[in-house]
């Protein structure tokens, strides 16, 4: 339960912190931390305009996507507290339910019949397909290391082993989760949320025709996803047997660092060339495989 609440709190401030970091880095005064929340409040009060060709899929997709994101919140653990629902292999459910949300977002874009949205949907479907193996190999590595197969069990036993190399997996895990989260949430360097040309957009062009309530749901889902990945990073970095209050503090520190990374990344880096994106995304799978081999060596399987 505490994990559930912590993630909700983190999600409230996450996008605002990214905004602040970006405006400070670029020397602008910029909006306040709460601006994204105010934007959502505005969107929720607005009416809606639907594209003339759109049908039911376009209308239900944002709700389905948000429902999927909220549902996966239930399997995210915090500290020694197991998640609200924990079972073996729950991370498979996690990945596949998020994929369900993505499936609907993609076909909703196709429902508009716009070639721009088709383009965005196509790219998003392609990149998120390529990023999946990295996530599964990472979890496979964790499972092999701990011998356990649910988020709650893996992370509560992650640091308990007397193996001092655990720091290595923590760091690799953190790095991979940051990268996966950036791709899943369509941030730099794969996608640039602030680009102004439809032809170079990925996620933004996919949701071009959403407005009002639905658009607000899309934003909420995206903020929650950030905080969920942030929680996973915390779990990979912070040993579960430390003091609970310290862990709560560290939870927010990790979220803050994650937001800082995204903000700085977007201030000082350009988006990849579109044709180089697949290569970039697949590199993560390669890194995950390297991590797997490292675990093989450290657990003594390879060097016996």
């Amino acid at each position, binding site marked *: 339960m505490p994990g559930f609440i912590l993630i909700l709190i983190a999600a409230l401030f996450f996008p605002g912190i990214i905004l602040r970091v970006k405006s400070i880095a670029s020397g602008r005064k910029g909006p306040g931390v709460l601006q994204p929340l105010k934007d959502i409040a505005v969107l929720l009060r607005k009416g*809606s305009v*639907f594209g003339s060709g759109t049908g039911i899929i376009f209308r239900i997709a944002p*709700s389905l996507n948000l429902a999927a994101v909220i549902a996966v919140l239930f399997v995210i653990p915090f500290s020694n507290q197991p998640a609200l629902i924990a079972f073996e292999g729950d991370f498979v459910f996690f990945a596949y339910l998020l994929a369900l949300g993505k*499936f609907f977002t993609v076909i909703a874009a196709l429902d508009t*019949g716009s070639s721009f949205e088709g383009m965005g949907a*196509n790219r998003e479907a392609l990149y998120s397909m390529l990023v999946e193996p990295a*996530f599964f190999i990472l979890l496979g590595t964790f499972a092999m290391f701990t011998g356990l*197969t649910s988020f709650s069990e893996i992370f509560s036993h992650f640091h308990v082993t007397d193996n001092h190399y655990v720091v290595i997996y923590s760091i690799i895990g953190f790095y991979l989760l940051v990268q996966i989260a950036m791709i899943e949430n369509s941030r730099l360097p794969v996608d640039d949320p602030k680009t102004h040309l439809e032809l170079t957009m990925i996620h933004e062009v996919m949701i071009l025709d959403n407005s009002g309530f639905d658009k607000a749901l899309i934003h909420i889902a995206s903020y929650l996803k950030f905080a969920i990945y942030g929680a996973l990073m915390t779990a990979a970095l912070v040993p579960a047997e430390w003091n609970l209050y310290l862990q709560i503090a560290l939870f927010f520190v990790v979220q803050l660092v994650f937001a800082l990374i995204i903000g700085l990344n977007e201030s000082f880096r350009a988006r990849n060339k579109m044709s180089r994106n697949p290569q970039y995304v697949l590199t993560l799978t390669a890194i995950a495989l390297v991590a797997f081999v490292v675990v093989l060596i450290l657990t003594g*399987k390879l060097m016996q």
Partner: protein
Amino acid sequence: MFVQVFIALILFSFGIFIIPRRFQFAYALTLTLVMAALTSYWAFDIMQGNRQFTHINFHVAALQSSFILVFDKLSAFFVLVVNLTVVVGLLYARGYLKPYCATKNTLSFAIHYFAFIWLYFSMLLVLACRDGISFLIVWEVMAVSSFLLVIFDAEDRNIMKTGINYLVQMHIGMVLLLIALLIVEKSTGSMSFDALADYFSQHSNWPLFLLFFAGFGIKAGFIPLHTWLPQAHPAAPSHVSGIMSGVMIKMGIYGIMRVLLSVQHDYLIIGIVLLIVSVISGVLGVMMAIVQHDLKRLLAYHSIENIGIIGIGMGLGVIGISMQNDVLIVLGFSGALLHVLNHSLFKSMLFFNAGSVYQAIHTRNIDSMGGLMKKMPFTALLFLLASLAICGLPPFNGFISEYLIYLGMFKSLEGIALYHSVLIVFGIVALTLIGGLAIFCFTKAFGIAFLGEARSPQAAGAKEVSASMLWPQAITAITIVAIGLASAWFVKPLFSMIADTYGIPVAEYVGFTKNLTGISMLAGIFLILVVALLVLRHVVLRHRPVRTGPVWGCGYTAATPRLQYTASSWADSYFKLAKPLLRTKVHNADIAEDEIFPVTKAYETHPEDAIKTGVVDAPVTRFLELLKKIAIMQTGQIQHYVLYAFVFMLLIFLLTYFQLI
């Protein structure tokens, strides 16, 4: 009593030729339903463990031999899978065949129904025959009856050609099985599956297994033995493709399972071969599916992919036996078997709805569809449901079987030898990749075909198909959702079946059902959230101004439906990545230098099957060239032929004279 009914049904099937046309469907349906009720009763009895086997023994005086039919738990499970899909398929066929009433005569309908009934009966018999000879006979009946079904539309010459191709390939598989069974007979004196265990205990296991695997693999459609599949499925009428893809190819899986039950050693090598072939089938199957424009061909390639997933499960199970890892055995095999059931449900449903679309707009080309969800809402909804299920997305049935396989892999990673870990990670990566590619493919199949604006006049004028083609699919749809939501109920019998077979104690697997309860709970939460959000959305939007307007065109106001993303453009970005493995023929004329006013241009892409070209076409062409060279002897002059005969006789004389033969 039941046995007599069983035999009576088989005899009654011939009656279809003498009854009037308007009763033909009812007659076929009655036979099928009675048979389904009877065999399902047997199957449930066996699955519940009330008895171990059902024996049917009938003596044929003319042949002076008796045939013994045996249903055990494995066959009982497959019987249930077959029954469900065949009954739904026949109910669907009624509406699908209606447009053919005007062009086809009574006899061709009679042949069609007869072949249908016999495809069904032969599948049941395949599951029950243990004796080699009778097995091969019913295996042959299955091939011939499905051939007759494929060529229903044989006015089209291509369909006849495809049909012949199919028949030839089935017989190659048949020959392989015959050889395999003869090897068993030579060594043990009995040509039956029951004698396999004897053989395997005395000989090296993997060569004979590979022979069986090749023979059954042609039916199942493992790459590179798949080449009949993407041709035969689009050619057949849709209810037939649904049944062929949904259940008939599973007979190959059944055969492999049956042989695996008898294998005694060499587990590791068999498991590795199964796993590698399945991974290749799974990944390449879906990769080739993505570039297809023909909706039914796309689905056919997906069958290859799903056979790959089933094979991955089986391969892991076998590797589990070699490692004596009970978890992997139970989860691998039960995942594979559940996927057999799941695939039969959603794949048949996809084919049925592709057929409905074909009936409405008379094309299978995805690029000529578009916007069909507005014209055919129920068909679209069923297609969407099946698409989500085939992508393995929760809360539907495909997720459960893939989850079981995943869980088996993740649970086995700890504390095993290096090569086992590498194999399992290989399996995990493959399954993830297959899942991702399937989503990419079905967002295309559903999105381009059913959403957006109509891309052709036919699609614009499409009408929803008759109710008789829709409601039978409700049975399938309910089962898909039920397995997804109440998985424990369906998986438990599979667990106990596999545990019984391999002597695994209950304590080893009883905990897994708890995970399935967790899935059901989360799926329930998800559905509640969906409903809550949609209700909230409805309430909120009621008080807000809602209007429709044009979609964002970036300032361009004359957008036509032709500007939409097409099936080819959807596949293009991916195609560039996968180029080394895929082949597409492009017809495109560049603008000439002296062409001041460009004329109309056409751009066409034809996806090709690189494996078919390499493995089937190239050897056949080479063989034909060789035959052509030999054909020099065929001069057409009678004196030459007399001379050949003379030379031949001389040769025989000389050879015998010198005692060479």
